[in-house]
């Protein structure tokens, strides 16, 4: 007796028509990740901070006018402590610190995100090439990256700034270059582990060419650890900018950037500590937020870790 499993060929497909296709909405795996992410309270705290910062960065102009409050000099109310009209007080040139921190968010977050995006992109390209092809290319690229890793990051930054003058662009180049090796290493490891799966072999059996295999089969599944590294990386870049501005390599003044504000006002630390506390707190909260989110994402993206 022929079981009904094998629908006979000519069966009319009426009941499976188009409408059925649409009826089942596509349940994206991201929903699962979000559900797991919600579980960790710390990750939510991190996300909340990030939203506040993003809000500050985007609506900075509405909160306080850039030109008048953050740049213009008014010596009259110089070095005033936090008060009603100046929530964070004023700096050595009488500019409102709250305005500068808010606008600083745009610069610092901007720097952090751009550098991370760039080094992640390059890391992804180099990493997937090394991971997927292996052999000579892998060795050559890894050795070159070893060279880059051996050179102290600060030397790269100093030399670039000395070469082309102090500007945000050079800062971005310098920071991006020093983070590429770590990104490439992570992508490479992740790609190697994913490339071993049978669905990659199945893709080759279906005649897919290599670039499409990498972009559609390997990278989406290798994204987990990379996304975690991206969130962690933004935090370390914001901190790196602060350290660079400590040795005079930060963004060009008077652009408000937390690192520069912090290192420039370190002299006032003992007499008007708020000048150091608020930018410092801003950096800490941002790094904390990104790290917490990164931790949460690591657990959420890796279903095996779920207890």
């Amino acid at each position: 007796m022929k079981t009904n499993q094998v629908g006979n060929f000519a069966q009319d497909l009426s009941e499976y028509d188009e409408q059925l296709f649409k009826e089942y909405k596509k349940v994206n795996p991201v929903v699962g990740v979000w559900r797991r992410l919600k579980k960790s309270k710390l990750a939510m705290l991190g996300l909340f901070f990030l939203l506040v910062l993003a809000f500050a960065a985007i609506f900075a102009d509405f909160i306080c006018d850039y030109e008048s409050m953050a740049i213009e000099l008014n010596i009259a109310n110089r070095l005033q402590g936090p008060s009603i009209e100046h929530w964070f007080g004023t700096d050595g040139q009488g500019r409102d610190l709250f305005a500068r921190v808010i606008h600083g968010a745009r610069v610092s977050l901007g720097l952090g995100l751009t550098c991370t995006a760039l080094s992640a992109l390059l890391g992804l390209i180099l990493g997937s090439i090394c991971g997927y092809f292996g052999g000579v290319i892998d060795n050559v690229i890894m050795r070159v990256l070893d060279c880059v890793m051996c050179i102290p990051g600060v030397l790269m930054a100093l030399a670039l700034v000395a070469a082309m003058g102090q500007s945000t662009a050079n800062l971005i180049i310098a920071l991006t270059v020093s983070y590429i090796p770590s990104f490439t290493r992570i992508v490479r490891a992740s790609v190697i582990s994913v490339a071993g799966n049978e669905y990659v072999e199945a893709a080759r059996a279906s005649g897919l060419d290599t670039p499409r295999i990498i972009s559609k089969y390997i990278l989406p599944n290798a994204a987990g650890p990379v996304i975690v590294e991206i969130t962690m990386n933004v935090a370390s870049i914001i901190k790196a900018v602060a350290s660079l501005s400590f040795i005079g390599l930060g963004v060009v003044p008077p652009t408000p950037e937390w690192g520069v504000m912090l290192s420039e006002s370190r002299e006032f630390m003992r007499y008007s500590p708020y000048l150091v506390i608020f930018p410092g707190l801003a950096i800490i909260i941002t790094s904390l937020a990104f790290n917490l989110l990164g931790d949460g994402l690591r657990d959420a993206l890796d279903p095996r870790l779920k207890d």
Partner: protein
Amino acid sequence: MNRPLIQTVNLKKYFNTPRGKLHAVDNINLSINRGQTLGVVGESGCGKSTLGRVLLRLVEATGGQVLYNGEDILQYNAKQVKKMRAKMQMIFQDPYASLNPRMTVSEIIAEPIRILGTITDSRELNRKVFRLMSTVGLAGRLVNAYPHELDGGRRQRIGVARALAVDPEFIVCDEPVSALDVSIQAQILNLLMDLQDEMGLTYMFITHDLSVVRHISNNIAVMYLGQCVELCSAEELFRNPLHPYTRALLAAIPEPDLNHRMGEIIKGELTSPIAPPAGCRFANRCKHCADECLRQELSFSEVTPGHFVMCKRYSDDI
């Protein structure tokens, strides 16, 4: 008897490792006629999976020929290979690792059609996907489901549908049922056999489970350490196994029947496939081993019509 659909001539595949060459597939000569199933059976590490992948050029052969309808596909250039893939497909072993977790059921099944197939109009494509899903017994509502939402049995059905998508002639099934429970295993085996009857498919069925291979294959090849040690029809193999290793395999299978007595269990373990010595590779575990078995290469001779064996002293203790 028309020409076999696919035939291998002295097919070889060696992997180089720091300790020397690993003889994964060593001088294999097999052929499968259209609409038939060749069972390839052997323990882990005997090269059966590599053989399947070499046939489909997922792994590049080291030597020999693979004749498909008389043409040696190993000489094909990239474009020809792509066209060939429409005719030759593969079903994988691990239901959890053979489907891309980021794609829905319909996308997975439609992928080969989109690349190799001729259908371009999306409505027509959806229709084809529906028909394939009903053919392999998948409910229509699973169209937009993701692999991680389904159980092993359904995932394997998706694998089968994907293989059928481009209406192939020849399918390599690499241990398609070993990862499944007994009841689901039976459903999939029935499905594969029905598809063969209906579409005249030709299978190479790779497995380590002798009872499964007996059930589904017309001919069976027994492999040991990269070499094919015995090849004959399924009935012949179980009625009159010649090679000592085949006999040891059959003896080791515990039949679910109380009055079935287990045969004599062989000793020792697989030797290393890296740079194997000349002569019979089963020598170290074989009772009848004599010096003629060692040193020189054994031939793969046809002792009775359709029954090949690679052993000189097989007739000793029938």
